[in-house]
């Protein structure tokens, strides 16, 4: 059972994220319908289906508190749709609060934190439905009578050996009721599962009896939209498993990138061989092969770019969250703010979207709590009482520009300087220009508000914004005019130099080794390493494999490990094993080159930040292996001469 859940969890989070995105967007539209009797049916339907789907998938992974809350939100929407209740301001607030609680609950589960209690919101919604209307709350998901169920069947070789296959499951389901929909799905691990929505009488006993056969049931509330099926919502605009879109696991794209990396290496090997064979070939023939090799290189580059483009997602994923943040923050601080979004369809690497969420969130929060005046102050300054925050994105060439602009009071340079001095930060003499200003507000330890402030309370200051940007290879500028407002301009690369890498410990240091260079990983006993012809070798697949201790190659104090992990670089006679103490992980890294002559050393190709701000060196495993091969080769030659 646990394995089954684990298999599904990643899918669950990804799918929940998509439903939440739809919900956020639909709620923004719905807000205009407060107090009206006729509400845009499309929006209601969209919200209803998203809550319904969320409830379904939450049930599938046994995430009860989310399931209960989604269920209650769905009930309220049903009442709205049936016209039983009118959408009040209180109802709207509760919907937003409910959506927020759903998000928090899912996030808590994802972070493996303690479960969020959604009971309070659930009760609030229940009382709202009884107060505002007459409709009956939908039956609890615990009811086990005849009703709609989501049934998932995950086949396995063991099950098939026992004769339990999808056809058997289908006929079993037909026996107990009616199959409404059926669809195959692929989970994150790449295995196939089948999902059925059935209308049937499913008893607890039946659920238990069929569980060992890979069948899992989740109730869907009676009256749920027929055909509304978890995972199928072709209207959200994001990458989904229906219509013209496929949902792709990022890990699979990485796998593709790794294969392309291998091709690149193979191709360069081909070029080397060609160069060596030139004098043995007729010139015409050589040129033909050479042309083909170059064509392969071009295609490879395009293939690589094509795969990188698959990773691009709309910036809107960041933006859509902001109106909610602003809404809450503005209400709490007695400000009135409109959020205007533009260029949401601008596409950017998925990885960048994830990393940019917090910085943009911070700049937007800053704009509300520092930039924007109270309506009274704005009135006195001759401005409209409601302030405007503009979030825009645009692509220009290989960069994406994101702007966060407010029409607030602007940054008070004198106040910033005074504050910086008070915080003990060095303040340059003379006039403070925009660059120096940004420098000051981005300095660690700078904050113009009390610790009690909601923004600084998050522990995410301007310095983290800037560090994140720089880590991503982006830049930030600020423009501010007293009384007119502030604009932050962020420039980011469209894609990143991202590589899949293995992390290995050597002595007391961690190094990253790009996966593209590694053919295989192996483990050896220290005792199995033998000296042979002046080099060290181990037996690997029945042949001696020269090995290099990275502790020696990198001048790191060797450990007294009794077992080593090894990266096997190259193949056949050219194979070399690089010995490390332990392989400690595997992750995507952002590659930063080490360009300065002081640190340009052989065997080190760059550095990366694993998130704690410390530099981790990226090793050029190929170069280290090559050096070792050369040394070994020379020694081998000497021995041959000696025999001759």
């Amino acid at each position, binding site marked *: 059972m646990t394995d089954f859940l684990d298999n599904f969890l990643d899918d669950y989070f990804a799918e929940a994220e998509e439903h939440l995105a739809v919900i956020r967007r639909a709620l923004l539209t719905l807000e205009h319908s407060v107090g009206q009797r006729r509400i845009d049916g499309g929006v209601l339907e969209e919200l209803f289906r998203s809550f319904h789907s969320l409830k379904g998938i939450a049930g599938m992974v046994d995430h009860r508190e989310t399931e209960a809350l989604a269920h209650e939100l769905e009930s309220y929407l049903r009442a709205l749709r049936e016209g039983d209740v009118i959408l009040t301001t209180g109802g709207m607030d509760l919907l937003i609060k409910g959506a927020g609680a759903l998000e928090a609950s899912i996030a808590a589960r994802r972070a493996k934190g303690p479960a969020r209690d959604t009971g309070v919101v659930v009760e609030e919604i229940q009382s709202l439905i009884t107060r505002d209307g007459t409709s009956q709350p939908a039956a609890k998901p615990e009811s086990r009578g005849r009703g709609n169920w989501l049934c998932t069947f995950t086949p396995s070789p063991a099950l098939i050996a026992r004769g339990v296959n999808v056809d058997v499951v289908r006929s079993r389901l037909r026996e107990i009721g009616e199959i409404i929909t059926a669809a195959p799905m692929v989970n994150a691990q790449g295995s196939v599962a089948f999902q059925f929505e059935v209308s049937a009488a499913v008893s607890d006993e039946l659920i238990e009896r069929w569980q060992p056969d890979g069948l899992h049931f989740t109730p869907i509330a009676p009256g749920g939209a027929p055909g509304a099926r978890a995972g199928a919502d072709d209207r959200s605009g994001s990458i989904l498993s229906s219509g013209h879109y496929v949902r792709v696991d990022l890990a699979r794209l990485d796998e593709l990138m790794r294969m392309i990396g291998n091709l690149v290496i193979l191709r360069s090997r081909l070029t080397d061989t060609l160069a060596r064979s030139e004098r043995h070939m007729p010139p015409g023939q050589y040129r033909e092969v050479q042309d083909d090799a170059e064509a392969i290189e071009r295609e490879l580059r395009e293939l690589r770019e094509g795969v990188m483009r698959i990773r691009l997602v709309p910036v809107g994923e960041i933006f859509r969250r902001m109106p909610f943040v602003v809404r809450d923050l503005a209400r709490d601080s007695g400000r009135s703010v409109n959020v205007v979004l533009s260029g949401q369809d601008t596409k950017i690497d998925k990885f960048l979207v994830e990393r940019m969420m917090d910085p943009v969130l911070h700049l937007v929060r800053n704009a509300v709590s520092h930039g924007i005046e109270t309506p009274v102050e704005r009135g006195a300054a001759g401005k409209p009482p409601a302030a405007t925050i503009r979030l825009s994105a645009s692509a220009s060439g290989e960069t994406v520009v994101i702007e966060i602009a407010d029409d607030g009071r602007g940054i008070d340079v004198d106040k910033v300087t005074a504050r910086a001095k008070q915080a003990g930060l*060095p*303040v*340059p*003499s*003379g006039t403070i220009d925009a660059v120096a200003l940004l*420098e000051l507000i981005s300095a*660690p330890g700078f904050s113009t508000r009390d610790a009690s402030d909601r923004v600084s309370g998050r522990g995410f200051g301007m310095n983290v914004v*800037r*560090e994140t*940007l*720089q*880590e*991503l*290879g982006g830049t930030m500028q600020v423009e501010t005019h007293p009384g007119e407002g502030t604009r932050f301009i962020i420039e980011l690369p469209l894609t990143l130099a991202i590589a899949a890498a293995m992390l290995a410990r050597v002595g007391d*240091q961690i190094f990253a080794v790009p996966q593209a260079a590694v053919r295989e990983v192996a483990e050896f006993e220290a005792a199995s390493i033998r000296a042979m012809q002046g080099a060290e070798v181990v037996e690997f697949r029945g042949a001696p494999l020269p090995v290099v201790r990275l502790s*020696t*190659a*990198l*001048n*790191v*104090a*060797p450990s007294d490990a009794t077992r080593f992990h090894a990266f096997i670089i190259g193949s056949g006679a050219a194979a070399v094993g690089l010995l490390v103490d332990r392989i400690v992980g595997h992750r995507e890294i952002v590659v*930063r*080159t*080490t*360009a*300065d*002559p*002081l*640190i*340009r*050393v*052989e*065997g*080190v190709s*760059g*550095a990366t*930040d694993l998130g704690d*701000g*410390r*530099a*981790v*060196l990226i090793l050029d495993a190929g170069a280290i292996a090559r050096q070792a091969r050369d040394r070994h080769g020379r020694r081998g030659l000497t021995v041959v001469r000696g025999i001759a």
Partner: protein
Amino acid sequence: MTTDNYILFTVAGTSYALPSQDVAHVEMVDQVTRVPNAPAFVDGVVFSRGQVVPAINMRARFGFERAALDVSSRLLVVQSKGRSVGLLVDSCREFMNVPQSSIHPPGEALSGLSAQYVDGMASVGNRLIVVLSLERLLGSTEHAVATRPREQASGEGHGYTETRN
């Protein structure tokens, strides 16, 4: 009278100054990642504002014993000819305006490794400050790289108190 703004820092008890326009920023430093086979006076690399910069240990550069990093240790990230290089110093606390007229050529009295990087000596109030030339400081490191042996002996330990030259 022309006055230039300088940033002041200390290395092994002496006050040094660099023109503040050469210093991109100053930051706290708690850990330097060692780079194998780098020049002896380079402690390693640090991430500074998303950039990988080498950290030159100024004590080692000037021929003093290394000292462990502490709360007053700072990394001055300096920029010269498109390069960004970090200088590890004992402390760095102030900016100062120094009139050109109070900077004198270094006397014969100044000796030691640091002498070749000195632009002049400034006396401000009762303090004596050594004004450095960034160009020479970094230029000489390029030379150091060019003459560095390709491979150092293996099994060598590492640490701040060790001198490797």
